[in-house]
């Protein structure tokens, strides 16, 4: 139903103890004059008495379409469809995930389920990170890396417990995994809610606006499991057919290792900018209007994932240039 406004959904990730509950309590209790529904995986012991708190089970379903990385959150499909039947309109929905959850199935739910996509839209993935412990967590848990890799916003919490040099180090580490993420420093998750909710980070328009923050990628003592990012720029326009062939094959064969990808492409003979963004194999892509007057027309893409060096990305991208 196109005429119905889609309710934005924020996905809140982060390790246990990082401060997710503090943030959720703020969202539920602050006088913001908005109606937020919060989907949690377990009710806190204090038992928040609120009909807008919904209990979820984090059930991850594999889609029966032969794509192994195409998993969705079955409980989320059910709960979002139930929330859309309410008599009152919600301003936003917040989905909390457990500390050890992979954010991909949550994000993919919005690409895969048509009913969910019709009535709601993925707004942003917000990761609450503990400035004291993030460094060690990133080394120890895949999930911590994934949560940073997927994050549109990292709420770097407990900054009062770490000195400036330490914070710079943590930020650098975050940016190396995910050059697109916006880092907000807080002591007690006290960032204004408007910096966390309703960001529209998954819209293709936002891909055009946000400039990635690339750091020098030196590949010193990284092991294969590390999540990293790479980016490419081409001043020469690309060939549509070559690009489709390369990119389609790339996602098919390496989609599981590519956590997120974004790009703005100039194709030879096509006036409009082509914008895409993806989660694993799933992709949202569309022409997004003409290049702005006087703008530097070039093609840019970024990949965040594992084993990126094994995918010959640079050669593949270069090979798409129109002859």
């Amino acid at each position: 139903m196109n005429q119905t406004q889609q309710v934005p959904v924020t996905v809140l990730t982060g390790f246990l103890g990082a401060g997710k509950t503090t943030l959720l309590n703020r969202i539920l209790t602050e006088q913001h004059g908005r109606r937020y529904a919060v989907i949690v995986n377990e009710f806190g012991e204090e038992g928040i008495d609120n009909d807008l708190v919904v209990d979820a089970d984090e059930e991850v379903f594999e889609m029966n379409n032969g794509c192994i990385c195409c998993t969705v959150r079955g409980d989320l499909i059910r709960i979002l469809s139930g929330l859309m039947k309410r008599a009152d309109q919600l301003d936003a929905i917040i989905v909390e995930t457990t500390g050890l959850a992979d954010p991909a199935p949550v994000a993919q739910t919005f690409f895969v389920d048509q009913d969910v996509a019709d009535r709601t839209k993925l707004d942003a993935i917000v990761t609450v990170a503990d400035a004291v412990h993030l460094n060690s967590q990133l080394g120890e848990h895949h999930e911590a890396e994934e949560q940073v890799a997927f994050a549109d916003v990292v709420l770097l919490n407990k900054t009062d417990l770490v000195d400036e040099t330490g914070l710079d180090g943590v930020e650098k580490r975050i940016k190396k995994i995910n050059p697109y993420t916006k880092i907000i420093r807080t002591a007690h998750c006290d960032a204004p809610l408007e910096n966390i909710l309703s960001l529209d980070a998954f819209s293709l328009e936002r891909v055009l606006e946000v400039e990635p923050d690339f750091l020098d990628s030196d590949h010193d003592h990284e092991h294969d499991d590390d999540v990293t990012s790479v980016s490419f720029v081409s001043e020469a326009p690309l060939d549509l057919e070559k690009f489709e062939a390369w990119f389609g094959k790339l996602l098919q064969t390496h989609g599981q290792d590519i956590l997120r990808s974004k790009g703005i492409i100039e194709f030879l003979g096509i006036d409009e900018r082509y914008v895409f963004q993806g989660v694993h194999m799933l992709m949202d892509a569309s022409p997004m209007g003409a290049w702005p007057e006087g703008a530097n027309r070039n093609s840019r893409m970024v990949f965040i994932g594992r084993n990126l060096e094994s995918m010959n990305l640079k050669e593949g991208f270069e090979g798409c240039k129109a002859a």
Partner: protein
Amino acid sequence: MQSGVTSTTVDRTAKRIGISETEVERRGLKYELGAPVTGAATVGDAVAVGFGDGSIRFFRPGQKPSVQQSHLGVILCMAAYQDVLVTGGDDGRCLKITPNGIMQELADFDTKWVDCVAATQGLVACSSGKNVQLWSARQSKPINFVHSSTVGGLSFDVRGQRLAVAHYGGVTVWERTKRKWKSSTFAWKGFHGAVTFSPDGKYLVSAMQENAVHGWRIRDKANLAMSGYPAKVKSFAWAGDTPFLVTSGADEAICWPFDGKNGPMERSPLCVAHNRKQIATCVLALQNEDAVFAGFRDGSVLLAKLDETVDPIAIRGSSGAEITAMALSPSKSHLAIGDAKGNVLWAPLGTGAAYERNV
């Protein structure tokens, strides 16, 4: 079928406007009730319509609808058998309600939603998460069945001997034996939602998370994959003597034949109630008439014979909001149609000659 209603037949050349207001609509009563319609069922002498604000309205021919406040939130599911209505809500409660307004709380799951309900002769079941509770007239306390994942659908067979429970990975069928209920599993990869037994009890069919319907021949658990839908199948109904399983999820009602030894295996479905590019979201059988109502995403409703050569009749025009529920009055004289914006059309289908003409 054609005479007298030509002005309301589908205009296939109309591309944008959709279907205009119909004769049935002009004869009927329209209600704007604010909360989305979430379910409808024939119960006793009435049609019960459930809403997203927890209220139920009972419609009866020639009377004003009566309102019953029941759940404290969304009515997520409803099922009826004779004069018993069972509802489940996001307030965690499962209620048993009669058309004259006597309400009984069967269960309270607190913060957990009641997602599915089913009812038949002497039996009521509801699900909350992975649990199914079953009440039988013979026992004072419900029996609890636990499943491997959240339950997506519940259905009794016609004889009330079996309960089908759909979930991730397949359907579990609980069968009543002399002393207890015994389970058997019908496995198929993926998530299974709404589920139903064929009227003869020989087949089991579920609507999947993917755009497909899956069936099993119960005798040998042979699989029947019914796929190719452009959208998710949200609604199905058994219609006609064949019988056909009528399904939503396409720009027409897709009707799978379940006669013969092999049912729809290796056969093509019958496709009726074609509606340009609109996707059907809700279907309802008109029993004994070999006909089916199909409600669409744009709010239109068509009535079609189970015959591809006969044009459908428009029952409701394109109002803009998806059809979410439909039910017929016990005598089939009136039809209730509800949509996602909270509009209800309660309309007489006509009687005698007019009825004949329409159907």
